[in-house]
Every structure is written in structure tokens, then in C-alpha cells.
């Protein structure tokens, strides 16, 4: 009897230890567009068997109709995954997959570049691509440092308004997308408006015009078809410096809202525009 209890204990103790270092997964399902980009960047792309309907980059990712917002556990299980990467856990997805003995990795939205790098390394460890992930992170660090160093003193202190939707939702410097721009020495006009601390305040048009940002970063080009010309045509906006100084940067919503390797391109685009505005 004692032996049996001990045996059970041993199994219970060993079970988590055994699952802590499993063989690298070879059937990965990614339900997070950022994780998809990360996995392909670190060289785990060949192990990925399915990605969700929003994972549109890189082009060779095996895009399916799976949804990360309203996940269907059966549809996910049909791909026989040995690892599912998610950025959130809607309607108890992780627990449901655990019942089917499918391992999940929760990679929630990063709030800083350091967090994004840590996530790349974490995915590297989980997929057997530690070295690949490390190389990617080092390259990203280097490029970001180069971009930051290239910004002249005259461009530091310029203010920006990052637009996430045409009804003036913006992101503060506490969010990932806002934080990476403050690395350039830019000031986020949304910071003063975020009393609730959500990080994504809905600004009033009056405030944007009065704050008179030097740069406008349009991250609603894809969802909502916004362009520099359309912003210029908005009634009452013409007095804003960014519009008279050609300070509008149109970026892809996806690149601005994900925390994967392409964020470097986003930082570069804004840095180039800041330099051009400062040179005027």
C-alpha cells in the first residue's frame, strides 16, 4: 500500500519534470500573427503546420481558416499539433487543449522591445531553435541601435500622434507601439490623455489640433484606408504642423500592432520622417 502511494507520488512528481524538456515540436499551430512572424524568423517555419486567418506574413506561412479570436478546439486538434502558440486565452482555449494533451505556449502582447526579444528567445527554446532566435534578437538589437543613433539632436523632442483608427484612438508610450517610438526621443501626445491607464485613449479632435503634433503616424491605412491626403482633407486639421511640414508617416496597421521582427521597419520609417521634418 505504502509502495503504491509512493509510486503514485513519484509519477506525479516526474510528470511535470518530464514535460518540461520535451522533444522539439514538429507540428506547430500558431494562432497569433506575431508568433507566426517570430517562428518563421527564427527558422521554425518548417515545423509550422497551420496558422490562423490573420497570420498574413510571411507569405509562405500555411494560412488556414482557424481563428485566434473565436478558436474552435476541434478544428485546431484536427491538425494534430504538438504545440499551439496563442497570444491570448479566449474562452478557456488553453484548458480545452490541455484536456486533449496538446501543449500550448501563451505569448501575450509585449509591452516593450525587451519583452518582444524575450518572446523570440522563448519561442526559440520551445521549438529547438535557441541559436536561431538568439541571432535574430542580436540583429534586431543592432539595427534598432543604429536607427536610434542616426536620429539627430534636432529631431529629438518632436511630438507625434499615432492614429490607430479614424475615430482617433491612439496609443500612449506605455504601449508597445508607442514605446518603440519614444526610443527615438519623440514625444507621444496621447500620454496626456490616458487617465484610465488603458494605453489606448480615444483622443478628441480638438486636442489633436491644439497639441499640434510634428509627426502623424497613420496605423489605420489597411483597416480604414487612411492616407496623408485624407488626413489633410479633414475639416479643421490644416493648421497642424505635421500636415504643413510633410510629417505624415503611413505605415501598415499590422506592422504597427504586432511585436515581431518587422517592428524595425516601423521604427525606421518613423525615424526617417522625423529626420526629414527636423531638417526643414
Amino acid at each position: 500500500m505504502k509502495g503504491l502511494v509512493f509510486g503514485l507520488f513519484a509519477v506525479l512528481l516526474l510528470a511535470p519534470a518530464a514535460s518540461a524538456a520535451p522533444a522539439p515540436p514538429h507540428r506547430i499551430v500558431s494562432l497569433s500573427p506575431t508568433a507566426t512572424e517570430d517562428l518563421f524568423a527564427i527558422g521554425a517555419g518548417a515545423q509550422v503546420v497551420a496558422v490562423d486567418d490573420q497570420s498574413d506574413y510571411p507569405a509562405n506561412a500555411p494560412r488556414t481558416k482557424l481563428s485566434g479570436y473565436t478558436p474552435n478546439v476541434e478544428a485546431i486538434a484536427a491538425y494534430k499539433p504538438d504545440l499551439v502558440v496563442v497570444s491570448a486565452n479566449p474562452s478557456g482555449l488553453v484548458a480545452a487543449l490541455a484536456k486533449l494533451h496538446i501543449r500550448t505556449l501563451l505569448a501575450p502582447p509585449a509591452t516593450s522591445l525587451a519583452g518582444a526579444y524575450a518572446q523570440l528567445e522563448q519561442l526559440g527554446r520551445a521549438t529547438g531553435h535557441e541559436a536561431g532566435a538568439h541571432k535574430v534578437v542580436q540583429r534586431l538589437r543592432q539595427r534598432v541601435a543604429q536607427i536610434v543613433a542616426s536620429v539627430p539632436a534636432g529631431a529629438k523632442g518632436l511630438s507625434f500622434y499615432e492614429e490607430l483608427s479614424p475615430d482617433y484612438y491612439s496609443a500612449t508610450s506605455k504601449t508597445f507601439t508607442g514605446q518603440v517610438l519614444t526610443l527615438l526621443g519623440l514625444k507621444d501626445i496621447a500620454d496626456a490623455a490616458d487617465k484610465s491607464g488603458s494605453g489606448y485613449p480615444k483622443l478628441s479632435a480638438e486636442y489633436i489640433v491644439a497639441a499640434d503634433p510634428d509627426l502623424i503616424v497613420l496605423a489605420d491605412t489597411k483597416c480604414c484606408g487612411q492616407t496623408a491626403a485624407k488626413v489633410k482633407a479633414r475639416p479643421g486639421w490644416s493648421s497642424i504642423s505635421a500636415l504643413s511640414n510633410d510629417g505624415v508617416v503611413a505605415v501598415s496597421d499590422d506592422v504597427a500592432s504586432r511585436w515581431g521582427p518587422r517592428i524595425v521597419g516601423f521604427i525606421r520609417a518613423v525615424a526617417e520622417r522625423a529626420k526629414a521634418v527636423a531638417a526643414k
Partner: protein
Amino acid sequence: MRRAIRLPLACGVVFLAGAGLAGLLVGPVDLGVGEIARSALAHVPFLHVHSPLSGADAAILWQLRAPRVVLGLLVGGMLALAGASYQGVFRNPLADPYLLGIAAGAGLGATLAIVYGSGVVESYDLVPLAAFAGGAVGVVAAYLLGRSASGGRSTAALILAGVTVTSFLTAAQTFVQQQHSQSLQEVYAWILGHLDTAGWHDVALVAPYIAVSAGVILLHRRVLDVLSLGDEEAASLGVNVRRTRFVVVVFATVGTAAAVAISGLIGFVGIIVPHAVRLVLGPSYRLILPLSLLCGAGFLVFADVIARTVLSPAELPIGVVTAFFGAPFFAIVLRTSRSFA
């Protein structure tokens, strides 16, 4: 009788003027009362008053704030008036402007335009157009369904038809939205209602529809009083019940559809304002209709002032404000009126 109408009307006008003034004076950017007044006088010819406002401040006042206030007056007045007239012709206290499927239809139209229209046409004008058309389709469908069920004699059949059409169109709208989750934010923003992105262009777009609709409905205020006695009594008094109901519903629908097309689905104004007016002033539509128009206009502008100042310089969606402040306000009116009864 005339005098009994004049005092409430005067109060309504004062409330409306107060709301308009507050709307112009209060905002996230403090422009100064004197400066605003002089800037306004500068627009009057031959006075030669020089506007003290800078270019940006003048733009804030005249391009951002003023059209928003005017649109709030138009939309709020129309929704409350439409709600009052629906309650009158259907003799149903729960009737609101969205009763006959207009909201769900407009929501579906706007969603389709946002999802499939971007890139095809300039979506700025397409969304209101699609919302207007969708709202009209919803009401026509509900009307035909309700008439086929009861031959036009039963208002209950019409209301149930509206509920049916609303459920169906909402399901369709949710499905389309689900299939295109990248547009979720824009669809959601539209549904929550907005005055904040309005310009004079939007005001010019809806003003004619709302003016004509409001005018026609107000002309029917006496007939609605007769109608409140019941269909048979009204008919025996010489009122063409079906025609009256049809005309009022058509114009209330056109006005509501125009308001919804530009400002999205702003809830609660259409149901609480007419009821508040009725509880305070009694059941006569000769008072309820014009006062609903005035108070609805004032109420929405005040709600919008709250929307843009309470978290200033951040904003709240207006639909949140109308429900959050409207419901307790209505509860107070309900309680006080009961103690009078």
C-alpha cells in the same frame, strides 16, 4: 390652451439654447468665453470685429466644435421626435426609433460598406449611404411582413415583424463582421455612435432630411392625439388611421435613417426623452412632439459635452454617455412623477 403650450415651449427653447452655448463654450481646449464671442461677432459682416483666435483655435471652434454641436442638435432632436411619434402611432410605450429594424438594417449596410467598400469608392460617403439604404430596407421588410400577417390592422404584428427583422439583420451583420475581423474596430466605432468626426459636410448632408421629416411629423401632432383614443374611435372621428400611421412612420423613418447614417447608433435618446416629456407635461402630443424635438436636441448636445470633457483630452463614445447619464435621469423623472400621480 395656447398659453398652456407657450410656457413649456419657452422652457424647451431655453434648454436648447443653453445646450448650444455649453456645446460651443466647453471642450478639451479652453478657448475663453470672450474670445469665442468676439470670434463669433467677427463672422457678422459690417461689424469689423477682429477675431482674437489663432488659426488653430479658430479651426477648433468653427471646424470641429461648431459642426459637432449643430449635428448633435439635429440628430438628438430627430431621434427624440421619431421616438415620440412611434410611441404615438403604435400606442406602445416601448417603441423607439429603432423599433422597425432601422438600426439593424443600417448596421448591416454600414458593415457591408466598411468591409467590401473600402478601396472601391471613397468610403467616407459610402458608409452613410449604405447605412441609410440598409435602414430603409429593414423598415420596408418589417412593414411588408407585418402587413402580410395582419392586413395592416394590428400594430402588434408590425412590432413583432420589426423584432423579427432586427434579429435576422443583426445576425447577418454579426456574421459579416465575424468574417472580417480586421474591420472590427471601424464597425464597432460606427455602431457605438459618434458625433466627434463630424464636419459641416455631414451637417449639410442630413439637415434637409431631418428638417422635412420633423416638419411633416409636427403637422400630425393633433391627429396623433386623436389616434391615442384607439383606432376605431379615431376612425369614427374622421381620421384615416392607416394613412396617418403610414405617413408618420415613413417620415420618422427617413429622418431617423438620415441621423443614423451620419452619427451611428446613438441609443436611449429616442426612448427616454419622449417619456420624460410625457411624464412631466402629460399625454398630449401637441406638447410631446415639439418638446421632444427641443429636449432631445439639447440632451444629446449636453451628452456630447460630457463625452468630450469628462476624460478630457480623451473622449468617451457618445452612446455610453446617453445611456449612462440618461438612465439615472429617467429613473428620477419616473419616481417624481409617480409621487405626483
